[in-house]
């Protein structure tokens, strides 16, 4: 038995040794650099070859601009980054700054996952940002994050296809009725199969909910705390989508969706679809892979004249996780990150919509040619872009609405009944 004990002891010794080695490593990950700067941990999900150098250049500029703070950037994969954030907030050792989703700030504020920032900011700071973005970061009158970037949806259309179909390439569809009319002209059928589809409302970076809010004068599913799911306009929008599906046929829709579902090839670039809704950065794909493509951009068609070209928006914020060790230094960095200089650099390099108004406008000035044309359109479109932050009373209301929309689109129920059930289900889950 002695040898048994010896063996087991050896195993634990090995573990102890490993613990010893790594304990030392931990020591140098302290709070300060050798020259006495405070280390600010900054977590992002920008690890790709295209984005990482840009954010790291911004960080480098900031680090060189002063001698008190050293920002250390850590890449963490999309999605998992927030799981880790949550665990580290719970354990009391979070990062100092993290990039997070813009539409769920109030939920994190409610659950005390983020630091409140109002003591660091004043009205003049606030006024740097688009108001619809700033609204999302406030919860009960206090700010919990600073908007970083955003997006909006535009209609991209193939000018060559327009000419072929006898349409004016400088006159994109302005209303739903025109959209339908144009789409029919743009369809190219080969027997029962479609060689080109004019338009389908659910392809691209857009979903049924976008059209439903577009029809309903930009009103979301939950409007100022009131449920607005089962409204006549939203039912109508769902019926309208269903109409498209019936016209093209289930098979065509599924085939296209699956073909391009893996996000590799894009049907608009492949000229298999003539009109396509997507975010501004989609342009970079057109620029890189769609050399022969002649395209134009326009705001989303409106439900009827005067109803408004409402589009849905998203984006990200910079925030300080609850319990961060260096909130003041972190805020100093956030101010730089969301300031005009860094934001403009980000916008020009990434072709992304940024939250800082001055930076966005300076970016338009700097860009040229088609780059400028599309970017200007996205910035202009922000005026008609709505954010739909998730209210704290209905934390995962999407999970109750989406299956019903699916069922309606699959023909299992009527749009009216689907939305009625969705509204009931969401009502039931309301948190007190």
């Amino acid at each position, binding site marked *: 038995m002695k040898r048994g004990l010896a063996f087991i002891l050896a195993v634990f010794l090995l573990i102890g040794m490993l613990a010893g080695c790594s304990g030392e490593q931990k020591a140098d990950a302290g709070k300060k650099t050798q020259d006495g700067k405070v280390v600010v941990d900054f977590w992002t999900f920008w690890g790709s070859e295209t984005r990482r150098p840009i954010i790291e250049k911004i960080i480098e500029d900031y680090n060189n601009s002063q001698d008190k703070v050293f920002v250390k950037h850590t890449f963490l994969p999309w999605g998992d980054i927030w799981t880790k954030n949550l665990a580290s907030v719970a354990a009391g050792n979070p990062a100092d700054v993290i990039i997070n989703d813009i539409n769920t700030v109030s939920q994190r504020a409610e659950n*005390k996952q983020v630091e409140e920032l109002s003591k660091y900011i004043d009205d003049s700071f606030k006024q740097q940002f688009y108001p619809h973005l700033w609204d999302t970061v406030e919860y009960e009158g206090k700010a919990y994050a600073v908007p970083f970037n955003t997006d909006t949806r535009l209609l991209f259309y193939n000018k060559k296809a327009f000419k072929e179909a006898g349409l004016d390439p400088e006159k994109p569809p302005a209303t739903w009725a025109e959209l339908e009319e144009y789409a029919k002209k743009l369809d190219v059928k080969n027997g029962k199969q479609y060689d080109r589809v004019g338009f389908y409302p659910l392809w691209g970076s857009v979903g049924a909910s976008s059209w439903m809010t577009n029809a309903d004068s930009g009103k979301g599913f939950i409007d100022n705390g009131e449920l607005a799911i089962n409204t006549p306009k939203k039912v109508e929008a769902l019926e309208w989508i269903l109409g498209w599906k019936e016209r093209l046929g289930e098979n065509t829709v599924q085939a296209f969706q699956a073909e391009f579902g893996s996000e590799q090839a894009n049907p608009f670039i492949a000229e298999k679809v003539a009109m396509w809704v997507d975010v501004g950065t989609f342009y970079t794909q057109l620029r890189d892979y769609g050399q022969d493509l002649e395209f134009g951009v326009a705001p989303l068609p409106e439900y009827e004249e005067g109803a408004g070209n409402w589009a849905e928006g998203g984006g990200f914020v910079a925030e300080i996780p609850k319990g961060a060790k260096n909130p003041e230094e972190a805020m100093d960095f956030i101010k730089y990150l969301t300031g005009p200089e860094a934001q403009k650099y980000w916008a020009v390099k990434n072709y992304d919509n940024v939250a800082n108004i001055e930076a966005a406008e300076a970016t338009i000035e700097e860009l040229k040619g088609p780059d400028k044309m599309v970017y200007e359109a996205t910035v202009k479109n922000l005026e008609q872009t709505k954010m739909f932050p998730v209210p704290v009373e209905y934390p*995962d209301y999407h999970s109750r609405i989406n299956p019903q929309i699916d069922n309606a689109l699959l023909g299992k129920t009527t749009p009216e009944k689907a939305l009625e059930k969705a509204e009931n289900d969401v009502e039931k889950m309301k948190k007190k």
Partner: protein
Amino acid sequence: MKSSESTLAHREAGTNIIPERKSTNAAVKKKGLSRKAKDNLAGYLFISPWIIGFLGLTLGPLLFSLAASFTDYNITSKMNFIGLENYKRMFTMDDLFRTSLYNTIYYVIFSVPLTTAGAILLAVLLNQKVKGMKFFRTIYYLPAILSGVAVYFLWMQLLSPSTGLVNTMLGWFGIEGPAWLFDPEWTKPALLLMKMWSVGGGMLLYLASLQGVSSQMYEAADIEGATAWQKFYHITLPMISPIIFFDVITSTIGSFQIFQEAYVMTENGSGGPGNSLLFYNLHMWNNAFEVFDMGYASAMAWLLFIIVMILTVLNMKLGKRWVHYEGGDGK
């Protein structure tokens, strides 16, 4: 039983693996430790790494989650006792709970027998003396090595209704394939198909187990004129039954916890068309990390614990009837 003695003798004669230490027998007796006490001591010493890990790393978090299931724990700031509220909510308020349980049971019922049978069949095939077997085994094990998002994206392409490889091949036989991941009726079969593709992991277990079946037994059966099926049923199956037992229990547990596939292959982990891929653990995950209702998620976890525990104990009881341990005791 008589021949086992002879093999034993043969083995000891052939391989002298135990060093000669005749005197120790007496020495042990002198120390006064009975065999029973010695076995107790050795037993606990041998499992001590596991006990340390269990007490030090596993038990605490487990009890914590059990406690959390009676609270409104939100991971970061709240943990108030609310009694059985979470458990009540599952059965009365949460309609998605039922959907997720149904989807999961559906998946378990099909995936466990299919993967078990598939793995055994494959292992038997890969245990033949065919040229290039090393390559075949490697190829069939490949899918089990692959993991992560790339595989799921790959399958999304393969299952594409009109040009996907799966439907193209069905087309060769004049079958019009379904829309797989886009049709709520076919999403779960699609995942089962994907699961079958990577049956190589289970195959490896059976292949290892088949190495313990002696060729002499088959030769003896050949002389008696047994058919291939008789040999499989009377020799192979009993010999690998401990591993079948293991496979059934662990794959039941694993199937109840299916998560990643559905999380990656449905948009934003939403649960797929018409919630047809909203599995129990996916619903739990959404509650825990989207809504931060970890108390409720913990309650769900512990209900699942009870369900699977009952099944496992049942399996163990039934196992005594059909699992054959060559070592002699099944206790």
